[in-house]
């Protein structure tokens, strides 16, 4: 059931909650939650989503591109090359910037929710058109600001979001022969799911979205603020449209942006009104997969319906749904512990919180593992679940994490172990490390196995001496961690 639970959290409960709602945490963070009431700590995680310091924007977020088409033909290529160089360099910087935010955003659900919306309203920067990183930044900021906000508002804004106008061709869609790309995905992927609309709805919706542009140039369209969407009224279809059985009335005599914006609001309202049940269930199932288990069971359908009702009853506010889910007996039940295959973000941001990994190495590892931030595989986002692990990505992740750890100095490992209690007691140390990194509380056999790895054949009573000699102790800790990342339990959460 999805009953409120409100009880005191033990260590395993606290770790479970942190694993599912944040990307990175230390032993010290877990201790902050132990002994507290579950409702209280969920509220802390939700509150910190707005209370934690806001990220500092990258330097280029207001720096537009130069236009090239007015230059003499011979000079154009140079500017085009510069533009694409910036597209790649700055979007790559933005990926690293976001990974930093994931690492820094402690005891807060903000970055997990931001990633959830990025995966939902997927946009890729790596497309043919020059996707200015400032557009990706603005979209990312939209998701962050509204991560627990109102879904209706999110939908209205995403329809004319600059990065989205680029990605799903909105900026190229005109009244003469509208581009159906965004109109289709709005229904299929963002709101109702397949099977709840007709091809005519897709075509009519496409007419509503015609004519919207976004300015990415410093020396063009100066009447429009840079990186803000605007309407080219000549290209917008102002006639009435029939959408999901509702008339979205137009007015061909008064061709204003306000009117076109009103059409979008009416369209979104039509979806949320006419398809309220399917939309709420579609989104809540996705949240369920994200926070609880990626493979909902038959009996979970009823729970998703409860969440969906909360969503509708709260006028599409997201926070009450997430709150209800995380405060439930289901979320804390044993049946859902350790059942999620970690996302590359969880794996890599998680481990690099603990171990120092320089430059863009960790970002590169995430790409090969199949989760390149700001560049999901396609418009449906990341499929997740078992798609995260195959014979290519799993061995790669294990190898790279081994290298991460191997690259630490031995004294660094001793410093790292400083977060744990009773470090000189090998049994206690192993228990804490396994608690922190394994999906479930370790078994007796696992504790024995990994204690042997730590001690390397030495008796228990030698560990305090080994630990005091940072070269020896640090080296043993490295071997332990390299062994740990091979275990399936390391890759579940």
């Amino acid at each position, binding site marked *: 059931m999805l009953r409120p639970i409100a009880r005191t959290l033990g260590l395993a409960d606290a770790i479970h909650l942190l694993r599912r709602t944040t990307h990175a945490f230390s032993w010290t963070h877990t201790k902050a939650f132990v002994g507290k009431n579950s409702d209280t700590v969920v509220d802390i995680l939700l509150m910190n989503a707005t209370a934690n310091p806001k990220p500092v924007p990258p330097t280029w977020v207001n720096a537009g591109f130069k236009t090239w088409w007015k230059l003499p033909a011979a000079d154009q290529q140079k500017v085009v090359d510069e533009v694409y160089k910036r597209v790649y360099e700055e979007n790559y910087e933005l990926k690293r910037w976001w990974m930093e935010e994931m690492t820094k955003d402690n005891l807060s659900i903000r970055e997990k929710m931001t990633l959830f919306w990025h995966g939902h309203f997927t946009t890729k920067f790596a497309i043919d058109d020059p996707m200015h990183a400032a557009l990706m930044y603005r979209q990312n900021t939209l998701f962050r600001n509204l991560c627990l906000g109102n879904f209706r508002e999110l939908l209205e804004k995403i329809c004319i979001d600059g990065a989205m106008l680029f990605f*799903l061709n909105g900026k190229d869609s005109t009244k003469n*022969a509208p581009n159906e790309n965004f109109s289709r995905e709005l229904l299929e992927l963002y709101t109702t799911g397949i099977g709840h609309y007709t091809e005519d709805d897709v075509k009519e919706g496409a007419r509503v979205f015609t004519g919207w542009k976004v300015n990415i140039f410093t020396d063009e369209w100066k009447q429009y603020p840079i990186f803000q969407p605007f309407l080219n009224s000549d290209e917008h279809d102002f006639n009435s449209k029939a959408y999901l059985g509702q008339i979205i009335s137009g007015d061909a005599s008064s061709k204003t942006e306000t009117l076109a914006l009103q059409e979008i609001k009416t369209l979104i309202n039509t979806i949320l009104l006419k398809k309220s049940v399917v939309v709420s269930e579609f989104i809540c199932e996705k949240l369920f997969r994200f926070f609880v288990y990626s493979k909902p069971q038959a009996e979970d359908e009823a729970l998703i319906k409860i969440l969906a009702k909360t969503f509708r009853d709260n006028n599409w506010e997201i926070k009450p749904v997430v709150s209800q889910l995380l405060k439930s007996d289901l979320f804390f039940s044993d049946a859902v512990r350790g059942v999620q295959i970690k996302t590359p973000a969880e794996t890599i941001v998680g481990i690099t919180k603990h171990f120092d990994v320089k430059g863009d190495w960790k970002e590169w590892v995430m790409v090969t593992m199949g989760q390149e931030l700001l560049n999901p595989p396609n418009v449906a986002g990341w499929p997740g679940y078992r798609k995260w692990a195959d014979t290519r990505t799993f061995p790669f992740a294990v190898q790279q994490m081994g290298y991460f750890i191997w690259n630490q100095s031995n004294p660094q490992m001793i410093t790292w172990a400083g977060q744990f209690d009773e470090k000189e007691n090998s049994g206690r140390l192993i228990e804490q490390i396994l608690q922190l990194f394994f999906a479930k509380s370790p078994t007796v056999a696992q504790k024995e196995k990994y204690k042997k790895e730590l001690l390397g054949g030495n008796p228990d009573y030698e560990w305090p001496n080994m630990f005091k000699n940072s070269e020896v102790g640090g080296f043993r800790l490295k071997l332990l961690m390299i062994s740990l990342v091979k275990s399936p339990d390391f890759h579940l959460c």
Partner: protein
Amino acid sequence: MNRRKFIKYSSATAAFSAGFNLGKIPVWAKTLDLDHPDDNVLVIIQMFGGNDALNTVIPADNDLYYSKFRKTLNIPKSKALKLSNTNSYLNPALKNGKNDGMFGLFKNGNLAVIQGVGYPNPNLSHFRSTDIWLSGITPANDSERLESGWLGRYFDKVNEVSEHPDCMNIGSSSSLLFSTGTADVGISVENPNDFYERGKDLLSGEGFLTGSGAYVDERNFLLDLSIQSNKYSKVVKNAFDSGKNTTEYAKGKLSDELKLVSRLISGGLKTKVYLLSIDGFDTHAGQGTTDGKHAGLLSEISNAVSYFMADLKTQNLSKNVLGMTVSEFGRRPNQNDSNGTDHGAAGVMFMFGEDVNGKVYGKALDFNNLDKNKDFVYQYDYRSVYDEVLSKWLGSDGNTTNQILGKRFESIEGGILVKRSSILLSNEKPIQSLIYPNPTVDGRILLKTHLEPRETLTVNQVDSLGRKYAVFQNIQMGSGQTEIPVQLIGKPGTHILEVLKADKKETVRVIWL
């Protein structure tokens, strides 16, 4: 599949050939576990995004194409490549590559162009329609879950644990195509050297859990992945090291990947199906015509496929390989105003290989027969192709095909594959006698040869020193394509088998490792 098939064969032959001394069937033959008694390989290229069939195979004789539907986004007739005496034309980008690319394959009779392929009530979602194509199931409604692939179901049914992976994704993650519903008959490989390096030190020493529940399922899934990676990384690396490429390839991801496939086949990997994918066909905007995005993608395929087939031919492996392309849908007949095309319905499939009856199938796309969404109507069900591939190429019997696809599908225009190349087929045309496996590790082989009715057969073995041993003398084995188990005499090394029939003599070389 193999052990079971072999036993079936052995008893059938024994009963069939009265003239054959039963005692001559070695005992081991009844338990011989050949990985795959035939070497047929299927290569599937998935064109993700929905390929614009209309600009791939062009109805250039139809004025509506130029005057109404594709006013600017068209391939001029002067540039399109006429496909023999039909009124269908190939996009000129498909002439790129070795020996005139895919167009060259067509001219040589090695490319089938199947027009208007689709299924009833087309779904215009990339993801749903991709799942429909990969699962080989056309669902009754949108909520029916599609959880297994047609090849996943097939290999789940027919195969036993093999030393070689049955199926392989090159350069992408696991695919529904290879899913049995609960497990995967395919592995994913990108670079065999990396795979080997990563796989060899992957075992954690942790054991499988018994019991049930999501945690047990997921943990066992991951543990199994590390064990499979460890095991198959060695096999794949071995094949990679013993295989070779004989031509240069064009640049590009698909070319690199087909180059790898060729090398793995050349190195003796017994994987039956390779899946490769090429993304970018979702050309809603800026699609281009004879140049540009779409032409570039077609060119990439034509380059990759033509060098691949040339490479295999040089190595005498091309007759073992059948290729096919799939894409979730074609695009709308009419272009949009962003110089692109939106999601449509019926598409085009290519099949290539020496066993393909290379010609144009189906009629050119018909603008006068559009469905209620104003999309092209399909002429052929995609599962007709699957049925033929299963039955003729992968050795599926009728019952099995029926179970995999839910029913049987009639072959398209009498069939796209010229003949069944499976070793078990009896009505195959006489060809050079063949040996499986070759090399052999234990001297146990199957000799596959064609016999006329009442033709007698004599087989001699000649070792590396020229010594001749009689294996069979003047036996009768019935007629048609026949397999005969042989235990080589002597020691490992290179041996020659002399196959003597009524009026001809063949020699076949076999390597005993």
